[in-house]
């Protein structure tokens, strides 16, 4: 299959991107300054991320759409206000996660942002679950640009006036350069920031404009170190079809009102796990030394029994040390539990720790 390119591919090339294939797309892993500089620049200034490979699924419908979606997602969508977003999951009957996603109520229905590697399957699953009367559009004509970091609000507001008035996890349509942009205040770095849905033919000029105002392009490499420091899950690593939201320690994302009556796909399993506890749970892990424990690193207790596995591990440029997340048996999931990580045949001491590794700077409310 031919590798797909986003509308910013030429811009990445002219900014000396090193490319990798990610979910069938040619995506920049880094630019000339490298992952650590890009990571730090995002934390101190403003980083631009091309996330156009992600799915933008528009579903149009009336009140009955909300009812049908509540049979799928563990959310209180009836009480979700227009332009408000929620983090959620598409699950199977065993509460295994097909995908994690952000769903926003818009005037005409819902906008769901899906992972690149999952979006086509998600579309198929949702098409089968939802009545055919609802129009669904996995929109390939729109790019998705994230801008993250403390200077982002000032930079973006100078181009799209009014985005500074958005609260965290809300969005709205804005007019800019004779077109409608959908902007949400959200992100995946632990910083204040925005995601902008923009038509493909306007994306390059828009990003060039952001660069002119002082933001810089950031690759997927730094996106990974930033999200890991922020303690956020990456599908295919922390989350997959064999993990449930309870095991992933994400039960905060399940609306309380939905836990008593269930009625969404996977609800039985989730309610059982909340009552009885999951046998394994996702935790943050801080190695004591400098050694980096990467994905699939085995985790042991002090009597040489394997008690879990790392799902993501890297060097955190802002934390200035190695960090990881992984799943451990429930009895080892308490903060400060001593564990051992087997790297290249040697066991290295580490501790279960609180997430995030790096404290968030989200702007929660401006009005």
């Amino acid at each position, binding site marked *: 299959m031919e590798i797909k390119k986003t509308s910013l591919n030429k811009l990445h090339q002219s900014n000396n991107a090193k490319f990798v294939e990610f979910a069938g797309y040619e995506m920049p*892993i*880094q630019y000339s300054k*490298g*992952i*650590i*500089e890009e990571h730090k620049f995002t934390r101190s200034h403003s980083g631009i991320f091309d996330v156009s490979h992600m799915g933008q699924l528009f579903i149009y419908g009336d009140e009955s759409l909300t009812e049908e979606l509540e049979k799928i997602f563990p959310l209180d969508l009836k009480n979700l206000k227009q332009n408000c977003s929620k983090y959620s999951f598409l699950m199977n009957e065993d509460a295994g996660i097909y995908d994690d996603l952000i769903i926003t109520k818009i005037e005409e229905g819902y906008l769901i942002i899906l992972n690149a590697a999952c979006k086509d399957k998600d579309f198929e699953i949702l098409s089968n679950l939802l009545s055919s009367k609802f129009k669904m559009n996995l929109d390939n004509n729109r790019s998705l640009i994230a801008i993250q970091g403390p200077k982002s609000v000032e930079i973006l507001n100078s181009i799209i006036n009014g985005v500074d008035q958005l609260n965290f996890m809300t969005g709205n349509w804005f007019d800019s350069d004779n077109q409608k942009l959908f902007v949400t205040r959200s992100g995946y770095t632990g910083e204040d920031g925005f995601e902008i849905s923009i038509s493909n033919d306007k994306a390059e000029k828009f990003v060039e404009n952001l660069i002119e105002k002082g933001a810089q392009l950031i690759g997927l*490499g730094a996106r990974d*170190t930033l999200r890991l420091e922020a303690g956020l899950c990456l599908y295919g690593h922390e989350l997959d079809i064999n993990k449930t939201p309870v095991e992933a320690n994400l039960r905060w994302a399940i609306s309380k009102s939905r836990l008593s009556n269930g009625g969404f796909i996977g609800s039985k399993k989730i309610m059982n796990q909340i009552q009885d506890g999951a046998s394994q749970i996702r935790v943050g892990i801080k190695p004591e030394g*400098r*050694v*980096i424990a*990467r994905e699939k690193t085995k985790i042991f207790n002090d009597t040489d029994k394997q008690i879990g596995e790392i799902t993501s591990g*890297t*060097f955190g*440029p802002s934390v200035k040390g*190695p960090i990881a997340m992984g799943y451990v048996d429930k009895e080892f999931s308490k903060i400060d539990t001593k564990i051992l990580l087997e790297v*290249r045949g040697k066991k290295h001491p580490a501790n279960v720790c609180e997430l995030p590794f790096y404290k968030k700077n989200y702007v929660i409310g401006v009005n």
Partner: protein
Amino acid sequence: MSEVKFSKEHEWITLDGDVATIGITKHATEMLGDIVFAELPEKGSNVEKDGTAGVVESTKAASDVYTPVSGEVVDINQAIVDDPSKINDDPEGSAWFFKLKMKDQSEMDNLMNKEEYDKFAKESAS
């Protein structure tokens, strides 16, 4: 001090008497990206030509470091273990990895000179 030689695994080596100094090339560091972890062989241990003699990790991945010649490890560069970013800053100078007391100096013969290595690195990168 001898002429700098290079291996296909992107190490450089110089010889002073029977003591070889070994590190990784600038080209290697550019391929690896930001180095955040380095592990070196133990002082006093013996390493074999083309065997592993350490590890470097970038933000992206771990890579083995090979030794282009055999010998006893007589010194290691603790400074790069304490601050691995030094490897990116000066890979072919102050950020050497380890020193070996060589047994068989003929092991140097098949290594590349600078010109040959530059050509090799350019070809292997494309």
